[in-house]
């Protein structure tokens, strides 16, 4: 269903830094904004900056930010004609996108069917394989222990047991041998059912020396689709990305082209609309890349791509949702220089990154033309304990990777936050590390780094 109608008021169905990001893009386009907030966010920056803020429920997300009916009602009641879901929460719940269609609201994102399809990780793998994109050696749906053990003989250990309805690092168990496989399989189905409403499981070979490389894509209602190059998000802790950068330091131009073309092929096969990211695993030992999954939303780390390409992805999402064509062609997109993002959380690195919400006393972010800080925080802000601990994203750019690292170091040195613990000191240590600076990392590197730096 094409929505070629313009809209003038957008409801932001999210909170925190991304709500501010969306709000800014709306303002720049001359659109009015409605922020939905839980009771805990009534004094948030988004509530203060939006043209209107409406309270949708008590603090727990399940009673507020995840309430589709309430959010739709809030849009209808405030005259908002479009809804931007941000990331997380309802961004990849096809039911919100469907409800928008039913109530004649514009969903700023892909079509419900695309969200649903790519949310089924078994389907997505099969689709990629069918169009000739390599996928991680693995299985389709596993129906029981016998089938699993047999597939494991073919694939070898360690193995990942994954939930079809998972994604984003959720619903994954690692089995080192057949007995672990049987035990985890028994648990994984029930856990997946509870978490995702879908107990289907599949398996993938565990790739030890891996990098996580993802490609940003964008499509409009006319079927124009482009890629905006890749991001390297290998530095993760428990499947949560900690540092993201572009370009990937180890990709050759030829490989970059191959991966971006593979991403486009996947996006084209479902005629993807709006912003999306296709994730790949790069096996550094075998020098192969494999499709991992597709995320049908704007991602946390989108500013990295905005810095290297000079393009505004959230603004583009809004324009596409209004029915406008992509404002750039593939041959007009250039990636220049290097950009790095660090996610600053209210967590104590010394205590295993335990979340420590509280009241920020002083908040002073660095100010530099080659730095960008996306945040919802300010001096005196009380961080509610009900949500994730992301305080800010700090993104640096440089003509090359070393410059980007040095600019980031300067930025972190001038980032003053008191009243709560933050992960700023952790990143300061990480950026000094020789292996990090050389670019020689892999997806388990951060965990090794954390163990070795405990001695400091």
């Amino acid at each position, binding site marked *: 269903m094409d929505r070629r109608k313009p809209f003038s008021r957008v409801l932001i169905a999210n909170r925190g830094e991304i709500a501010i990001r969306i709000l800014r893009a709306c303002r720049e386009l001359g659109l009015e904004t409605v922020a939905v907030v839980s009771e805990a966010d009534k004094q948030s920056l988004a509530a203060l900056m939006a043209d209107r803020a409406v309270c949708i429920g008590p603090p727990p997300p399940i009673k507020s930010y995840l309430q589709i*009916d309430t959010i739709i*009602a809030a849009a209808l009641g405030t005259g908002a004609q479009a809804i931007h879901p941000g990331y997380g929460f309802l961004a990849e719940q096809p039911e919100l996108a469907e409800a928008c269609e039913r109530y004649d609201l514009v969903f700023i994102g892909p079509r419900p069917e695309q969200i649903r399809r790519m949310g089924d990780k078994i389907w997505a793998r099969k689709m990629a394989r069918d169009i000739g994109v390599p996928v991680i050696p693995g299985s389709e749906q596993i129906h029981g222990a016998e089938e699993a053990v047999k597939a494991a003989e073919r694939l070898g250990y360690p193995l990942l047991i994954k939930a079809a309805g998972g994604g984003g690092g959720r619903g994954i168990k690692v089995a080192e041998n057949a007995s672990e496989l049987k035990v985890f399989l028994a648990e994984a189905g029930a856990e997946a059912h509870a978490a995702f409403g879908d107990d289907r499981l599949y398996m993938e070979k565990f790739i030890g020396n891996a990098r996580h490389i993802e490609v940003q894509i964008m499509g409009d209602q006319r079927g124009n689709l482009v890629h905006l190059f890749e991001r390297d998000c290998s530095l993760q802790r428990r499947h949560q990305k900690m540092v993201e950068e572009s370009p990937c330091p180890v990709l050759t131009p030829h490989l970059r082209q191959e991966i971006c073309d593979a991403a486009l092929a996947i996006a084209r096969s479902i005629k993807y609309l709006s912003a999306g990211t296709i994730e790949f695993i790069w096996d550094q030992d075998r020098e192969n890349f494999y499709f991992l999954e597709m995320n049908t939303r704007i991602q946390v780390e989108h500013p990295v791509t905005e810095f290297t390409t000079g393009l505004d992805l959230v603004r583009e999402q809004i324009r596409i949702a209004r029915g406008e064509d992509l404002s750039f062609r593939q041959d007009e997109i250039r990636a220049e220089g290097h950009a790095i993002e660090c996610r600053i959380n209210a967590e104590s690195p010394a205590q295993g990154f335990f979340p420590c919400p509280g009241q920020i006393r002083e908040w002073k972010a660095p100010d530099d033309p080659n730095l960008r800080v996306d945040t919802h925080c300010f001096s005196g802000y009380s961080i509610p304990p009900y949500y994730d601990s992301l305080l800010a994203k700090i993104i640096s750019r440089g003509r090359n990777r070393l410059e980007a690292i040095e600019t980031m170091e300067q930025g972190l040195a001038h980032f003053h936050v008191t009243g709560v613990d933050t992960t700023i000191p952790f990143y300061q240590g990480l950026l000094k590390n020789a292996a990090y600076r050389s670019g020689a990392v892999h997806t388990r590197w951060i965990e090794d780094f954390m163990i070795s730096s405990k001695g400091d």
Partner: protein
Amino acid sequence: MNRITAKEVLEILNKVKQSRIEEITLEMGRFTFQARKSTPPKESPPAEIYPDPIAGPPTARLILAPRLGFFRQAVHPGDLPLVKLNQCVEEDTPVGFIQVLEKMDPVPAGIQGRIVRICVADGKMVEYREPLFLVEESREKR
């Protein structure tokens, strides 16, 4: 960092007990403390000609929207509203509905007393915990 001791909690509890406060919620950082008084049954007072000098003026309490939606004073537009000004209500008296898409959620008064103000117009969107009615709570519990 905000801290509260057990002694302080007891002090607060005692003060609440001695006051006319019915319910208190205290949030400090990650700590939440909630206490509600259950009023013991009172004997029915004699007919009031003069205000009761011991009990003091009546307590006014708000009926708040239990969720965001459109306030409906009756099931169908044009019907007589469920309640009117100065009407006495019991705790389980429905005072209106919150309409969310196709669903109509009835709103029980939650208070025994007399409606002294209607705070919201029929059909208006109300936010979570937005005031709907002001009720003068009756001092007599039946």
